[in-house]
């Protein structure tokens, strides 16, 4: 490749990165623009007279704090429970033998390929019969059943040497101790990657949350924000403030655990 072509390719790449980041930049800066500044043409690339009025309005007129709390509880609860369930499953799949093991793992693989939305209607009816409409459990339980989580933990569990567990058995460890004292410490990094995956999955599981959580006080942040689009219609600054409030927590998680994000993506696919 010639030097000029290389330079042009680099330029295009950086422009694309800016294009991808632009909506986020526009949202954050827009949240500090007053209603008249937000609709002014030409628009200001950076608010010249930033205001926090949008945030004041947001906190006064919506339950955004409640929604954030709901999201944290639901995503956190889903993560904790899904990690326990999937880690046990990964252990059972790789370090134990039970009847129907191969069939069950086959089902896990098959269901990973089926769109979850196929089961939307029956799942809705099921939750209604369990009286879990407008209840956080209705969105936590399906996340615990994610086949990808079990698959991911099976991949990680395979890397734990069998010799380690055999040595533990000879030393007289109980089955529970083998799992908690020997197995868990070794798969810890894998659980970290899974936790990040489940947390962001649950945080963004919008469609299902929209169906199950219609009560304003029960909504998660994404569902809540989406209702503000019509409530704050044409008030773009206030809409952006709401969106920014939803962005910050997950952004913090992303920055703090970026390593695990990448690991979760790569382990789940090519190296599997």
């Amino acid at each position, binding site marked *: 490749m010639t030097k000029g072509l290389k330079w042009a390719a680099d330029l295009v790449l950086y422009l694309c990165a800016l294009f991808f980041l632009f*909506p986020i930049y*526009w949202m954050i800066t827009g949240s500090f623009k007053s209603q008249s500044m937000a*609709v002014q*043409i030409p628009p200001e690339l950076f608010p010249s007279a930033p205001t926090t009025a949008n945030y004041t309005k947001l906190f006064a007129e919506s339950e955004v704090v409640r929604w954030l709390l709901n999201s944290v509880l639901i995503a956190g609860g889903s993560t904790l429970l899904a990690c326990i369930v999937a880690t*046990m499953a990964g252990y059972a799949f790789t370090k134990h033998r039970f009847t129907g093991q191969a069939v069950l793992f086959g089902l896990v693989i098959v269901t990973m390929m089926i*769109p979850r939305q196929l*089961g939307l209607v029956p799942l809705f009816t*099921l939750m209604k019969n369990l009286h879990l409409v407008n209840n956080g459990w209705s969105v936590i339980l399906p996340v615990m059943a994610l086949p990808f989580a079990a698959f991911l933990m099976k991949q990680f569990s395979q890397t734990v040497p069998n010799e380690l567990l055999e040595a533990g058995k000879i030393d007289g460890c109980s089955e529970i101790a083998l799992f908690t004292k020997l197995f868990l410490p070794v798969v810890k990094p894998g659980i970290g990657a899974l936790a990040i995956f489940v947390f962001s999955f649950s945080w963004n599981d919008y469609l299902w949350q929209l169906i199950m959580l219609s009560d304003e006080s029960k909504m998660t942040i994404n569902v809540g924000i989406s209702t503000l689009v019509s409530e704050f219609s044409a008030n773009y600054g206030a809409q952006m403030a709401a969106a920014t409030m939803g962005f910050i927590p997950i952004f913090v998680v992303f920055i703090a655990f970026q390593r695990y994000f990448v690991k979760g993506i*790569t382990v789940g696919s*090519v190296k599997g």
Partner: protein
Amino acid sequence: MPGGAFSAAADFLRQVHEESWDKIMASRAYREFWGFFFILPFLLVFAAFEIYPFLDAIYLSLFDYGIGRKEWIGFGNYSHLLGDDVFLKSIRNTFLLVLGVVPLSVGFSLAAASIVIHKSAAVASFFRASFYLPIVTSQVILSIAWLWIYNPMTGVANYGLSLFGIEPVMWLSDSSVTLVAVIIVVITWCVGQPFILYLAGLGGIPSSYYEAASIDGASPWRKFWSITLPLLKPTTLYVVVTTTIGAFQTFVVIQLLTGGGPNYSTTTIMYMLYETAFKYGNLGLASAMGVLLAVLISIFSLIQFKFFRSDVEY
């Protein structure tokens, strides 16, 4: 006396425990017990919230099922859907969306990764974060930002075009451009994962392959076609299949940006399914849509598996 019965049972168990502990340990039942002990939590939730809904959806699709009615109609829902213009349009829109999103985002990811792999770790890290951030940011939040960007009067998209002397575009209300507007948005959250995977895949190709090719006088393009692409085939398969599955289920951006309109020009199968079930209460019909969607996705995935299967072994 419950207390007495309890201690008797405990004595018996202790006896069993002491006398044939080794035998029990080695027995099949013991192994089965612990295997099931660890799989049980997953088995329960997986059966109840994954397998059962899938099977029940297929069953329900054979009923005229809604609030206060449930009547067996065989394949009635399916024949209704295949004769429904709006549903056929939603299939067409979904196909166009998939055909627009998948090649563009996968092609772009591969090109970007091929450039970034030669850069320093810090630059690679910048691009990984830039391309992955839109995925983290949730489709709801991005859609709301785009709703403003696309506003024909006050949005920055038309302002940007006006700098080049281009007339304002009615991004979300002119049915000839709405699907393009939707595709642009969807691509921004479809690039992050393929990019990271391609970067990892490219990093795994031994540089000796390229050096050997250089000695043989191979051009950069030749190296790309004969070394890089074949070796990345497993990554490409995974990326194409998962991006296709994701694009087939596009929902959020439709709900927030266009509501399926104008004139059903952006109604996807998923959006129509949602409206049919949860707005109009036709649960049986919606289940049939879900089944058809799953069938379409399976067909696409199978074709892709056939096409991209790594038949080249190194």
